[in-house]
Structure formats: C-alpha cells, structure tokens
C-alpha cells in the first residue's frame, strides 16, 4: 500500500501519496512538477539532483520519497527568498559560473549548504563541498570564484 506523507516543500506544507519505491527526485519532478533538481545519473554519482532535507544537502535520487515524511525539503526554488535571486545566485551570474546550466541548481544547493555551515569558506573548503557535484562544462573555476567573491563580500 502507498503511504501518505506530509512534509514541507519550499516553505509550503504538502501532502502526497508516493509509490513505495518512488525516489524523492521522482516525486519532486514527476508528481509535484518541481523541475530544478535534475537527473544526471540516478545513482548518486553526479549531484545534479541535490536538494536540502532539514538544511542538509542530499542527493534526491538516493532518498525514497516516503523518507521525507515530517521533514523539510528545499530545492533551488526555495532558496530564492520572495522569489528574488539570492546574493549567491547573483554572484553566479556575475562570474559566469555555469554554461549549459544543467548542474547549476544542484551546485547552488550544495554551495548554500556549505555557506550555511561555514559562511567564509576558503578555496579548499569550497572545492570539497563541490566535489560531489559534477560539472562537465565550466572546469569549476568560475563556480569557485563566485563563491569566493560572495563569501568575501559578507565579511
């Protein structure tokens, strides 16, 4: 039997009945129409499906939908307060920290988690935080630059 779950998605209470074997990524994309998390590998290798559960960045392709019952889920859409670009997003824009943009939602979520825990990371900490997010286009440097510039500004 499918189980009804209640959770908070991007500050809104949701109630869903996911299939028992449905992943969080599938539920977000297919059932709820939240498309910013992308599926690049479906096995935890690429990070393009990264979302936050209770403030922790996770790969939504590795989490079952039923597991978020009672928890808070945030996708990139939920990281734009009042629908406005965050300072981090603006820094991504200014530094061309994306090319095709497929990895970008996952990357921004991963970086947001880092900055939550460590508002002024150094380059190595940034690289480590990004190491689970594959980007085939940018060579990562422009992403690191955006984070450095952003984190520096907050000092």
């Amino acid at each position: 039997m499918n189980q009804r779950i209640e959770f908070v998605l991007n500050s809104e209470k949701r109630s869903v009945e996911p299939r028992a074997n449905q992943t969080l990524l599938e539920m977000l994309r297919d059932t709820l129409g939240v498309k910013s998390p992308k599926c690049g590998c479906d096995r935890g290798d690429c990070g393009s499906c990264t979302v936050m559960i209770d403030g922790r960045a996770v790969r939504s392709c590795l989490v079952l939908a039923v597991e978020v019952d009672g928890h808070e889920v945030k996708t990139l859409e939920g990281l734009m307060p009042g629908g406005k670009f965050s300072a981090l997003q603006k820094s991504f824009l200014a530094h061309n920290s994306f090319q095709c943009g497929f990895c970008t939602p996952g990357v921004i979520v991963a970086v947001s988690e880092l900055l939550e825990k460590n508002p002024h990371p150094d380059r190595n900490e940034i690289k480590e935080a990004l190491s689970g997010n594959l980007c085939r286009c940018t060579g990562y440097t422009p992403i690191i630059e955006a984070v450095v510039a952003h984190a520096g500004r907050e000092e």
Partner: protein
Amino acid sequence: MADYKFIGQPVLRVDGEAKISGAAQFVDDLEFGPNLLYAAIVESTRAHARIDGIDTAKAAAVPGVVKIVSGRDFPFKFGLYMHDRFVFAQDRVRFVGEQVAAVIAREPAAALRAAGLVKVRYSDLPLVLNTEDALRSGAPLIHPGLGEYEHVPWFFPRAGTNIAHFRKIRKGDVDKGFAEADLVFAETYTVPRYAHCAIEPHGAIGLFDHAGRLTVWTASQSPFTQRHLFSEALAPLGLSHHNVRVITPFVGGGFGGKAGVSMEILAAALATSVKGCPVKILWSRAQEFYNTYQRQGVKATVKLGVKKDGTITALEETLHWDAGAYVEYGANVVNAAGLSATGPYRIANVKIDSVCVYTNLPPGGPYRGFGYSEFIFGLESHMNEAAKKLGIDAVAFRRKNAIRPGDTLAYGAAMNPSGLVECIDRVAAEIEWDKKSKSVDPDKAIGKGFALFWKAPAMPPNAASTVFLKFNEDGSLNILASAMEIGQGYQTVMAQIAAEILTVPPAKIRVETPDTDRNPYEWQTVASHITWGCGKAVERAAIDAREQIFDLIVRALGKEREALYLEAEQVKSRREPGWALPLKDFVIAGIVQPDGTYRGGPIVGRGMFMPEFASASSDPETGQGGHPNVHYTVGASGAIIEIDKQTGKIKVLKAVLAVDVGKALNPDLLKGQVTGGFLQGLATVLYEDMRFDDKGRLLNANFSDYKIPTAMDIPQEVVPIFIETPQPDGPFGARGMGEHTMIPAAPIIANAVEDALGVRITSMPISAEKIIEALSGNRQ
C-alpha cells in the same frame, strides 16, 4: 582599433537568469500530460551476432504495455554522411547495447520490466574488436553490404573490407623529403575511446498526431539535421520535411555527443507506432556511455624527417581509427583528421592515410576536437622527440616550422591569416620556458611541456546559417536562429553582434531555442563554427534591419540617407544634431504622415551565411584540388606539472593556452571555454579511459568507474591568452575556439612528463600506474 560598445565586452549571459534560477527547461522538464507513454529498449547482449528470432509473448503480458516493436516494423537505415545505421537492428547486431526492439508502456517501470522479458535468440558471429583484427585479410565483415551504402561523395569506402572510408593526402614527394633529412624516425601512439559525459543524458519525446504530423522534442545540437534525417529515414511511412518538426529546448551539455542523430531516431520512429500519444525515451547514464557516440580510438604511426638545422622535410602518418559498428557521423571525424594531421606546421612533403575502420564496438562519432585531440597527442609528442634528438629547443623547433599565413596546406589551399608565432611566444613567456624548474622535494619531479594545436570546422561545403531578427513594440529584439545554446554562450554572443549594429543592448535581445517550424535553417551547432557562421548571419540580419530602418526614415521623413546613424536605440542624423527618433516609436507601428497614413511597418531583418568558396571535391588519391576547410583556428599551449614519484600522480601547477580567436567577442565566455575545455582534455590524458572486455562489453559505464574531473581535480592555475588576427569573413573578425581548448592537453602533459622524468609515454591515458611503471624502467 574600432571602438565597440558591446563587442569585446564581458557582457552578461542572456540565458543567465534562466539558468541560475532553475527556470531553464531541458527536454526532460517538458510536460506532456497524462497520455504520455514511455519506451524502454531491448538491447543486444552480443557484439556481433545474427538475430534468429525475437519472442515478445511474455513481455506483451506485462500490465501497462501498449506496444512492442522491433526491426521488422522499421526496416530503415539512416545516417548523416554514410547511410549505415539502423533504426533497430535488422538481421544482425553489431555492438553490445544496440537497440533490437522497444517496449512502449504507460509507466516507465512497466516498459523496463517488459523489455527485460523480451527474448532474443542469437547466433554468434566472429568478433572484431580492434583495428588490427578488422584490417587483417580475411577478417569477418561487419557490413557485408558496405558497397551498397549511400554516402557523401568525399568518402571512399572499400567494399568487401571493414574500411568505411580511406582519406589519402599526398603533397610533394615524401621519399625525396626523407632522403633530404638528416634524421628520420617513427613511433606509434595510441589513444583509447572516450565518453562525452554531458551531465544531461540524451532524451527525446515523439508525437505523431492524428493529422499525420510528427513532432520530436530532443536534447540536440542539430535540430535541422535531425528533421532531415528523421524525414529521410521515415519517408517510407509517408513523412517528409513538411510534416516533421523538431523542437529543442536548452541542452545540458553536448560536446559533439548530441550532434547528428543517435537515439533520437527511436522517439521519431516509435511515435509513428502509437499515433496520437506522445512517447518519451530517456537514456540512462549507462546507455549514455554505450549507445550514443563515443570518441573513436586511434593508433597513429608518425614518421618524421628533419634536417640538422631543425627544418622538417617530410611527414608520413598512418591513422587507424577504431570507428565502431556504425560510422555515419564518425567517418567524417576520420576525414577531418586526415586533412589536417600535419598539425600547424609548414611541411613540403606529406603523406597521410587516415583510415576509418569498422569494429564491433559502439559507434564512434563527433567529440569536442573532432579527431584533432586524437592525432595531436602523437604528432606533438613526436615533434618534441624530434627536437630532443636534434638537440634543438622544443619551442624554437616549433617556431621554426610553424605554419604562416599563405603557406600551402596539406590539401593544397592557402593558410588563412593567423598569429601562431605570437601564440608561441606568449605561451613561452608565460610559463618561463627558458627557466628550468626543479623541485626542492626529492620525491617530486617538475616538468614543462609545450604543444601547438589547430582545428578547422569540419563541415560540408554548403553548411549554412540563417537568421531572422524581429523588433518588438518596445524596441527590444528577438533573434530567431537555429544554433543551439549548449553552454558555450552562443545566445549571448549573437545578442552582442546584433546589439553592436542596432545599438539595442543585449539585455533587451532574446535568442530563443529553436523550433524547425519557426526558426530558419542552421546546419548544426558543431565544429566551433557558430560564432563565425551564425554570427555572420546575425551581422547580416542586423545590417538588413538597419538598412530597412534608414530606407524608411528617408521615405517617411525625407532625411538624407548618408547622414543617418543609430545610437542608443535611436535614429540620428549627422546633419541635424538635435533630431533623434527612438526605434520603439516606429519599428512596429511605422511612421505617421501628415495625412494620417503610415509608412513602414514591422521591421524584420534577414541574414544568411554559407561559405561559397568551400569545396569537398578533390582527387581521391592525393586529396588535392578542393577547399574542404574554411579556415583554421591556431594556438599554442604549455604546462608546468609536478609528479609525485611515489604515487605517480600528476599535479598541474600551471597551464597556459593562447588561441588566435580573430576577435574576442566576449572575453569572459572565451575564458570559460578555456577553463572548461582544458579540464576536459586533461582528464583524457590523466585518467579517463573506456574499458571493454573480450566480448566487446563496456566495463565502466558509470561515473564511479569512468571518473570525470571534480572540483578537487582542477589545475592550480589556467591562464588564457587571446590573440586577435582578424578572420576576414568572420563577424567583427571572429573565428571559433570552443573545441580547441581541449585539443592540446594530452601532448603538453606527455611532453612535460618526458621533461620531468626522461620517459616518453606513447599511449593515453598517462595514468599514475604508467608513470610508476615507467619510473621502474618499463618503457611504455
């Protein structure tokens, strides 16, 4: 130098807000409603076998299954340059993973489960897994029907063999050249297969509606090529270009992997079997590795003749390409490499055989660099060895032999304007080539490497770009083109070109992704030709619009035409300093006359570009006589690396790439191509490598076993340098450089390893194991 407002400026990307906000839609993000069906593929488990039968009874009984189809339902061939690929395998399979049948179901899980229940009976045929076996006399034939296949006139297949194309280049007299040389030596270099690994997998949705129209949404670099190939392949079903439409949203990385047609043919074909229902097919990451295109492997034998003073007298190269089971696109990689395998050198006597060989491995095809990344490894390794053997500095040797504008290319045409020598000098200075670095740590060795590179767009001579440019009521603009935004920033650059001419800022210009019914023709977004070719079309469309505007001002207001100019979104006149007419006041509405009538109306610019000087006709025995390449973009590169002698690990301390881009239209975007492309190339030389077993099965079809670089793997420093020798027919003098940044990575590392350790490694990748083996005395 001209004073530009938008050209050459670090203009922000016009697709930026969509991409940092999650608003950008990729093909899997599109919604098709509850009637959407899903397809799963039955894949060949054999690399070479006859199909004796397909039993679908069990699969058909799975709840939710709508339809099962196989080769019997679609006995059609297709291909871009050579018609050798099949919608579904017919009488035989030729690689592991090839599509044999498909199940269409209401749910993805049902389709997948049913596909697993389809039973295919095979009789094994002898396997051909490498070029040596394929070229042996009496080798099993992978395409016995090769002699019947249609192909472009510049291919030379050999019926009755596994040679799909044989590109010959003969210039001067190599025997004489070798006789004149003081030193002649040869070496063989091998490069394995590689995967593109765009993070977005391939996907396509087809809908054949009840009116008989086929629409296919794809993740593609080539919407018009797809429409053309779908129409050709499915013509027996009554389809033609008129009733086939391809729509391509943003693409999550291409690198050549999404050029042409690979799995998308399935969505097109399957849709025709479930009329009225959209049907979606998404490749898994594993399928992405083994059933799209792979970069072809190559075995290159390079023989060079040089005089004591460093003059190259002759070059002979034999390139055997492992092109895989189908070469409809890949044979052109072989062709392009054959034309240009001299590298950017002036060499009087040249003999090149570039041979496209069928094997029972997945189809090879285009990958960023298009054959050049592959041959440059051997060629530039060999150039270093030549310099070393002669006791000449490796940079001085290259500088002496570097190709100059006007020099005769291997196929007889003249070299275009380019600043290769300046590239060489700038890189040498930046990596302090004249200073030998030494590690203070005895466990580490430091080495410097240097290499040249070049690449021409590989295109049919009539590859064209077309652009419409339309104004909106507020004076903003839409550019309608059919190039693809695959990450390179093409939309932004097109906006900059139009902005420069029409004075409308790029932020007010939209460049939407294509729909073949609405956007005009573009050949494909490949070959690094879009900035140049499509850019030229945009320039012409903008000039066309500007001329219409001036004509109208003359006609409606009686102004003097020669005095008119555009500035800050207004028409102005040098004769009347006080007068200005904002574009938004008339580009849609027209200009009102004293009697209340209007003149003008919506302004729509049109631009087209086709390189009318290009020609692929040449003598098959010598390659002489045509003008197959429109121009080359050249460059030089260097690196400083540190090798850990205990672990064999290589760290790139600094890499420098100088590229002659003609004109840097957007320096920030160019920089992005350097950091991204160089890392992609670096991974091919350090660790990426496709591994197959003796049954032709790919062993590492995932990101844990086929490692691509993470943020932890980037070089310490990458320095891009842009040289600007204008390309006469390019927009504002620009030429392309998107692929080029990947090309030199392998030889600069190989040469730096040689510099650091004194060992020459002749096979890629140059893994830590190979370094350790080399250090313990086993020459590779």
